[in-house]
C-alpha cells in the first residue's frame, strides 16, 4: 500500500524537481533515489503482509504474492533506471517529466498487482497506459516517435473501450465489481450456470488484455510502437509494463474465471499459437535489432500466455513471477547494448566482441536467456510455464509446438551472437559505455545466471 502512495508522490516530486533542480545529473539522482526508496518501501510492505493478506476499502487485497511481485518488479525497474538513466535524460528537454511518468506507471503497476475490484483494474490499466502514450512520443522532432505515440494512443483507447464494455457486461450479470463478493464468485462458480452476458464479458476482457500484452492477433501496434519510441523507453514498455499486465491478467483469469475456464481456454490456446508463430517467424526476417526485439517481445508474450492457459496451477502462478523477472532483466540487458550502438542492424554489431568484450558478453548471456538455454534464468522461466501445462496432461501438442517455436527463436537471437563474435567489423558506438554501465550490465548478467542455477530464489 505504501508503495502505491510513494510512487504517486515521487512522481509529483519529480515534476517539481524539473522546476527546482537545474542540472540533469541532480534530476537523475533524484529519480534513482526515488526508486531505491520505492524498493525499500515495498520490502517493508512485504514484511507487513507476509503473515496475512490485507484488504483496503474493499478495493485492493495485498497478500504475499502481490507484495513479492511488487518487490521483484521494483527491482527490475531499479535495474532499468540504473542502466538507462542517462539515456532517458538524453531523449529530450523535459527530462524530469520522463522520470515522473515512469513513477506514475509504477503506481499503476502496483494497482494492477493488488486489485480486488474491477474498477481498480481499470484505473490501474489507465494509469499504466496514459504515461506510456506520452513516453512513446517524447522524441517530439522524430516523426516515427509521433507515429508511435498516436498509434499507441488510438489502439490503447480502443482496447480500453473493450475493457470497459466487458466490465459493464460482467457487472450486468453479477451486480458487483468486487471480484471477492459472493455474487461475483457465485456467477463464475461453474460454466453451466454462467449467464451469456458474462461469457461475452470475459471474452471482451480477454481481448483487451491480449491487446495490452501484445498477443496476436492484437499485436499489430507493437512493432511500430516499440520501434518508433525512443530506445530508452522501449525496454520499459516491453518489460515492466507488459509483465505487470500479465500479473493482472492471471489474477483475474485464474482466481475469478478459473472455474469457467471452458469458456475461454480455447481462445487463449489459439492466441498462443498465433502469437508464437507470428512473433517468432516475423522476427526472423527483421534486419533491425530494435524491431527484432519488438517481435521477440511478442513471441515471449506467447510463452507467458501459457501461464494463463494452465488454469489453477501453482506452478504457472509462481512461474510467471520468474518469467517476469528473467524476461525483464534479459530484455533490459539487450536493449542496454542496442542503445549504445550507432547502427541498429545486425551488421552494426559485427565485431562488437573484440571492441567491447564486456558488452558482448552480457548481451550474450541475456540472449541465451531469451532463447531458454539452461544455466540462464530463461530456461527455468520457460520450464515452469510449460511444465504447468504438461501437468494438466491434456495439451501436450501445444507444448511441443511451443518448444519448436523456441527453436526458431534461437535463429534470430543467435544471429546477434554471430554478429558480435564471429563476424568482423568495427561495430561503431553511439556512446561509449562507462564503468558504471558495465558494472550494472555485469550485475544484471550475473543475476540471470544465478537464477539459472537457483530459480527458487524468485520462485520460493
Amino acid at each position: 500500500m505504501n508503495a502505491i502512495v510513494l510512487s504517486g508522490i515521487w512522481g509529483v516530486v519529480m515534476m517539481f524537481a524539473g522546476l527546482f533542480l537545474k542540472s540533469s545529473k541532480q534530476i537523475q539522482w533524484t529519480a534513482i533515489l526515488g526508486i531505491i526508496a520505492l524498493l525499500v518501501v515495498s520490502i517493508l510492505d512485504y514484511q507487513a503482509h507476509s503473515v496475512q493478506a490485507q484488504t483496503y476499502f474493499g478495493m485492493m487485497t495485498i497478500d504475499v504474492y502481490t507484495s513479492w511481485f511488487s518487490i521483484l518488479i521494483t527491482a527490475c525497474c531499479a535495474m532499468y533506471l540504473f542502466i538507462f538513466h542517462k539515456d532517458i535524460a538524453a531523449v529530450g528537454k523535459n527530462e524530469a517529466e520522463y522520470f515522473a511518468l515512469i513513477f506514475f506507471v509504477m503506481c499503476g503497476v502496483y494497482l494492477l498487482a493488488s486489485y480486488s475490484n474491477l474498477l481498480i483494474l481499470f484505473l490501474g490499466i489507465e494509469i499504466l497506459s496514459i504515461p506510456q502514450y506520452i513516453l512513446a512520443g517524447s522524441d517530439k522532432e522524430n516523426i516515427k516517435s509521433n507515429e508511435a505515440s498516436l498509434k499507441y494512443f488510438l489502439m490503447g483507447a480502443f482496447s480500453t473501450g473493450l475493457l470497459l464494455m466487458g466490465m459493464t457486461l460482467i457487472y450486468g450479470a453479477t451486480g458487483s465489481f468486487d471480484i471477492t463478493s459472493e455474487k461475483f464468485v457465485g456467477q463464475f462458480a461453474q460454466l453451466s450456470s454462467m449467464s451469456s452476458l458474462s461469457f461475452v464479458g470475459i471474452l471482451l476482457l480477454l481481448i483487451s488484455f491480449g491487446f495490452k500484452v501484445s498477443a496476436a492477433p492484437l499485436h499489430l501496434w507493437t512493432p511500430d510502437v516499440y520501434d518508433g519510441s525512443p530506445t530508452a523507453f522501449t525496454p520499459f514498455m516491453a518489460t515492466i509494463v507488459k509483465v505487470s499486465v500479465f500479473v493482472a491478467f492471471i489474477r483475474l483469469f485464474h482466481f475469478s474465471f478459473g472455474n469457467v475456464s471452458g469458456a475461454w481456454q480455447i481462445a487463449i490456446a489459439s492466441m498462443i499459437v498465433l502469437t508464437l508463430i507470428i512473433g517468432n517467424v516475423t522476427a526472423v526476417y527483421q534486419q533491425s535489432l530494435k524491431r527484432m526485439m519488438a517481435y521477440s517481445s511478442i513471441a515471449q508474450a506467447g510463452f507467458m500466455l501459457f501461464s494463463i492457459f494452465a488454469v489453477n496451477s501453482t506452478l504457472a502462478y509462481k512461474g510467471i513471477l520468474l518469467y517476469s523477472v528473467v524476461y525483464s532483466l534479459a530484455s533490459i540487458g539487450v536493449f542496454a547494448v542496442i542503445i549504445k550502438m550507432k547502427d541498429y542492424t545486425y551488421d552494426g554489431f559485427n565485431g562488437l566482441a573484440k571492441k567491447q568484450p564486456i558488452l558482448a558478453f552480457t548481451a550474450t548471456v541475456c540472449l541465451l536467456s531469451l532463447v531458454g538455454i539452461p544455466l540462464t534464468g530463461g530456461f527455468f522461466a520457460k520450464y515452469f510455464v510449460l511444465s504447468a501445462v504438461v501437468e494438466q496432461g491434456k495439451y501436450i501438442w501445444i507444448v511441443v509446438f511451443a518448444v519448436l517455436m523456441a527453436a526458431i527463436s534461437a535463429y534470430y537471437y543467435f544471429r546477434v551472437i554471430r554478429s558480435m563474435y564471429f563476424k568482423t567489423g568495427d561495430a561503431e558506438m553511439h556512446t561509449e559505455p562507462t564503468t558504471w554501465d558495465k558494472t550494472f550490465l555485469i550485475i544484471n548478467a550475473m543475476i540471470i545466471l544465478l537464477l539459472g542455477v537457483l530459480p527458487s530464489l524468485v520462485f520460493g
Partner: protein
Amino acid sequence: MLILLLILVPFIGGLASFLFGEKMAYAWSVFTSLLTLAIAGTAYYFYSQATHTTDLSFDCPWIESIGATFSLSMSDSLSVLMIGLTGLLFPCVFISMQNKQPERKHVFYGLMLLAQAGLMGVFLAKDALLFYLFWEVALIPVYFLSSMYGGPNRIPVTFKFFVYTFVGSLVMLVALLIIYNHTPVHSFSWDAFVSAGKSLPEADQSWLFWMLFIAFAIKMPVFPFHTWQPDAYEQSATPVTVVLSAIMVKMGLFAVVRWLLPIIPLGSIHWMNVVLLLCIIGVVYASCMAMVQTNIKRLIAYSSIAHIGLMCAAIFSYSNNLLGVQGAYIQMFNHGINIMGLWILVSIVENRLGTQDLREMGGIAKIAPRFTIALVLISLANIALPLTNGFVGEFMMLNGLFNSISTYRMVFTIVAGLGVILSAVYTLGMIQKVAYGELNEKTASMKDLTMNEWIILLVIMGIILFLGFYPNALMLLVDTP
C-alpha cells in the same frame, strides 16, 4: 565429494583460463586437464576396488519445490568408461596441440575446459533435469569453439549443427516433463523415472520413445539425422572435432543406455526393428560414402557414422547373452581412443601440408616413419583388426546382433558384417593415399612427429595394443552389472 571435483575442476579451470589471459592459458589448461585426469583415475580406482563408495556419489537438494536434486553418481561401468575417456582425451588433445596454437588461446582453452565440465556432468547426472541441463550446457562452448575456429564455412555449418541438436533436446525436455508428471511423488531422480516410465502403457511409451530417441539419434547421429555431421566435422578446427566425435556423439549412445532403454522398455522393444534398420542402413550408407570421399576429414566423419551405427544397433539388439550391450560399452571407449588418434594424425597432416585433400597427399611413409607407424596402427584399430582394441568390441557387438531377439537378426548381422569389410576398404584406401605412392611437392617437406606428438600417439597406441592383447581389462569392468 570426489566426483563433484570432476565437474568443478574443469569448470573453474575454464573460467580461470579466460581471466588469466594468453600467456598462462596453455600451461594452465594442460595442468587443469591433467588434474582432472588424475581425479578421474582416482575415481576409477575407487570404483574398481569398491572402496570409498561415498566419494563416488554426490547428493544435495537443488530445487526442492519440484523435486529436483543435484545428484551425481558414478555407479555403473558405462559412466566409468565415459568419465575415463573424457578425462583422458582433453590432456591428450591439449598436449598434441603444443606446436600449433590457436589464436586467442585463453578463449580456446577456456571453452574447451567448460565443454569438458559439461560432458562430465552428462555422464554423471542421476537426475533428469540435471542431465538435461548438462546436455545443453556442453553444447554451448562447443558451438562457440566450432564457430570461432575452423574452415571458411564454419559459421552456418555450426549453426545447423546447433539448431539440429537444440530442436532434438527441446523435444526431449517435453518428454522428460511428461514422464516426470507420472512419477508418484514428483521427482526427477533416475529411479523415480525408471519406475514411472515402466508403468506407462505401451501406447504412450511408443510415442514417448520417439520424443526421446530423436534427440539422442541426432546427437549420435543415426542415419536420417546425420546430415549435420560431415559438414560440422569438416569445418570445425580439428581439436574441436576430436571432442565432437570422440565424446559428444557418445552422449547420444550413453543417453540411450541410461535414459531411454530402462525408462521406456516397452517402447524400445516395440520400435527395435525400426531402429535396427536405421542403424544398419547407416552403417552401409556411411561406409559407401566414406569410400568416395576425397577430403580426409569427411572420410573419417563418415567412418564415424558407420561405427556409431553399429554401436547403436548392438545396444538395441536385446541379445540374450548381453554380449551386444557389453560390446557396445567397450567399443564406445575404444572408438573414442581410436578416433582421437586418427584426428590427431589428421591435424598433424593438415598443419604440415595445409590441405585436407587426399589427392594432394602421398609418399609420407618415406620421410615420416613414426607418423606412418602411428597412422597404420591406429587405422588398423579402426578397422577392428584382431589384436587391436577395436576387434573385441566389434566381435561382441556382431555376436550380440546375431543373438538378437529381432526376427530379422540374420539379415541385420550379415549386412552389418558387410560394413566391417567396407571399413577395411576405405581405411586402407586412406592409408595408401596418405602414406604411400610418390612424394609430391607438398608432401616432400613433411616433418615427422615431434616429441610431444609422438608421446601422445605412443600412449594411444599403447592403449590400443594393450586392450587388443588383454581385453579382459575392460571385460571385467563391464561384466559387473
